C-alpha cells in the first residue's frame, strides 16, 4: 500500500467579522491506501474543515496536499468537482439522499457528472454498488420509503459507486439505532479490502474504536495520532 495523501503545514483561516478563526493550524498527516482512520474531536476542533479540504469541497489557506502524487491544495472549482466525482465519496450523518430520485438514481448521481457519463453503464455500476451494500431489492424505491439503516446503506453505495480512493463518513451512525450502527460500521470496514481508505469523522469513541488509526484533533491541531 503506497501513500495516498501527504499533508504538510495545512492552514485554514476563516474571517468572522473582525476575528480570524484558525480552523486548521498547521496540520501534517500521511494517509495510506486501505487505511481505516477515525478523526476524533469536539466541535470546533477542525475535524470537519479537514474533511472538507481533503474531500475537495474547500481550499486551504496555505499548506500542501499531495493526493496520489499530485499537488492539489489550490485547484480550481471545476477541477475539485472532478476529484469529488472521481476520487472521493461522502457518507453523511443525515444521509442526504435526494427525495425525488429513486434509490438507483441516487446511487448513480455521482456518475452523471463525469466526462464519460453513459446512462446504461451508470445504471449497471449503481446496481453493482447497491448489491455490494445489500440493497438491490429496493432499486425503484424513494428514500422516504426506506428505514434509516437502509438509507445509509444506499448512501454508502452512492459513495463507492465511482470507485473512489477515499470515502469520508461524517458521523455516519449519528442518526441510526444501535442495531444498524454495527451493520453500517461493518460495511464501512469492508471497503478497506477494496483498497479504499475510509476516514470516519466522529466524536463517538465507540465508532472511533473500530478504526485502526485514531487521530484526535483539538483547536485546529493534531493532538494525537494513534494506531491500534
Amino acid at each position, binding site marked *: 500500500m503506497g501513500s495516498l495523501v501527504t499533508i504538510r503545514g495545512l492552514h485554514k483561516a476563516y474571517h468572522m467579522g473582525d476575528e480570524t478563526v484558525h480552523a486548521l493550524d498547521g496540520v501534517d498527516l500521511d494517509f495510506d491506501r486501505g487505511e481505516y482512520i477515525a478523526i476524533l474531536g469536539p466541535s470546533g476542533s477542525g475535524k470537519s474543515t479537514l474533511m472538507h479540504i481533503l474531500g475537495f*469541497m474547500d481550499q486551504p489557506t496555505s499548506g500542501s496536499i499531495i493526493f496520489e502524487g499530485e499537488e492539489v491544495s489550490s485547484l480550481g472549482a471545476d477541477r475539485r*468537482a472532478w476529484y469529488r466525482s*472521481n476520487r472521493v465519496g461522502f457518507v453523511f450523518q443525515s444521509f442526504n439522499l435526494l427525495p425525488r430520485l429513486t434509490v438507483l438514481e441516487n446511487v448513480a*448521481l455521482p456518475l*452523471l*457528472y463525469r466526462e464519460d457519463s453513459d446512462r446504461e453503464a451508470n445504471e449497471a455500476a449503481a446496481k453493482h454498488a447497491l448489491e455490494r451494500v445489500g440493497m438491490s431489492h429496493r432499486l425503484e424505491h424513494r428514500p422516504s420509503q426506506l428505514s434509516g439503516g437502509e438509507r445509509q446503506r444506499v448512501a454508502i453505495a452512492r459513495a463507492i459507486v*465511482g470507485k473512489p480512493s477515499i470515502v469520508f463518513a461524517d458521523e455516519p451512525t449519528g442518526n441510526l439505532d444501535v442495531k444498524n450502527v454495527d451493520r453500517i460500521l461493518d460495511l464501512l470496514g469492508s471497503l478497506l479490502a477494496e483498497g479504499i481508505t475510509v476516514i470516519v469523522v466522529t466524536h463517538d469513541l465507540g465508532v472511533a474504536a473500530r478504526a485502526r488509526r485514531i487521530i484526535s484533533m483539538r483547536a485546529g491541531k493534531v493532538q494525537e495520532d494513534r494506531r491500534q
Partner: protein
Amino acid sequence: MRIFDRLRPAVINGLRELQANKVRSLLSMSGIILGVASLVAMVTVVQGMVGNFRQFVDAMGGIEKIAVDRQALPKEQEHLAELSEGITLRDVDQIRATIPLIRNISPEVRVGWSSVVYEGREAVTLILGCTPDYLPVAKRWIDPGQGRFISDLDILHRTDVVILGSSIAADLFPPNVDPLGKVIRVKGKRFTVVGLLNNIEGAGMQIRSGNSKGGGGMWRWRNSGVFIPVTTATSKFTGNDHLTGLGLRIADANDLQHAVDQVERSLLQMHHGLKDFNISTNEETLESFKKTESAFKLSLGGVAAISLFIGGIGIMNVMLASINERIREIGVRKAVGARGSDLFLQFLAEAAVISVLGGVIGLSVSIGIVWLMNYILTQAIPTQAVATLDWKIMAQGLGFSVIVGLVAGVYPALRAAKLDPIEALRHE
C-alpha cells in the same frame, strides 16, 4: 461530455420538478401562457386585418392609381360655368402626350344604373363606358377562356359589345349557359357579351355566391357592373363627349406626387384655368390603414410584451423559490461532483421546461382566441374576415416564450451554480 448528454438529465429533472409542484408550476406558467396567447392571437388578427386593408386598397386600383373626377366649379369660378367643357377625350390625348409618368389612362363614362336583360332574367347594375386601359388601371383581368375585354377596334368602330362583371353574369345566366356570344339588352339596346371580368375573391374576405341576390358582402360591388366601349357609351347613351372621370396609373408609386401635380397643371391648362375636376389618390386611404395597423401592432404588441415580461418575472420568482427550497439538494449534487455549470444547466433547463410548456399551452389558447374572434367577426359583418393561424407566427410565439424563460432562468441558475457546497449541505 456532449451537451445533449448533459441536457437530457437536466430536462428530465425539470419535468420531474414540474410534476412535483403542479400548482406552483402552472401559476408560474400563467404569465407565459397569457403572453404567448395574446402575442400569437394579436399578430394573427392584425395580419388578417392588414391583409384585408391591402386587398381593399388593391381593389381600389392600388397605390399607383390616380382618379380624376368631374366636379362642380369652386364658388369663385361659378360665373364661368358655361365655359367649362368638363373632362373629354382631348384631355386624355393631352396627358398621354405630355406626361410620361402616366403609364395608362382609362377614360370612363358612367352611363348610370340601369337594367340589363337576358331572356327575361334581369339585373340592375352600373353601366360603365371605358377603354382597354381600364384593365391595368383597375388591376383587373380576364381569365383564360372567359373571352376578351374591349379592344381599340371596339373604340374606333363604337361596337355594341359588353363585358360582364362575374356577379352580373351569375345573375343573368343560368349556370349551364355560357354567356359568351349571347346577346343581352343594356338599357334597352342590344349588346353582344364578349367577355367576363375576373371574380374578385380575397384570401382575407370571401365573397359569397353571386347567385344569392340579397347576399353578398361589401365587396360584391367589385364583381358587378357591365363594361362597354367608351365611344359607344357617348354616342348611344350620353349624347355628348363628356367623360365622368379618368383613371390614371403611374409606373412607379414613388412618383405619385409628381404625377398628381403634372396632371393638375396639364388639366388646368386644357380647361383654361377652370377647376372643374378633382384629383384623388388611394394614398390617404393607405396611410390611414397603415396608421391603424401600427397603432394596433403597438398597443397589442405592448400588451403581449408586458405579459411576457410578467411571465418572465413569474418564472424567475418560482425558480428562486425552488432553489431556496432545494439548497440542500444543490449541496448534495455538488458534493458528489457536480460543477457549477452542471447546476446552472439544470436550473436553466428547468426554467426552459416551464416556459416551453407554458408556450405550448399559450399556443393552444391562442388557437381558441383566434377561432373566437373569427366567430364574432363573421357574426358582426356579412363578409368573413378570416384570420388564419400561421405556423411561422406560432413558432415565433414559442420562440419568444423560450427566450423569456431562458433569460428569466439565468439569474436563479447562476445563484444555484455559485452556492458553496459546504454551506448548502449545512442548510436546514
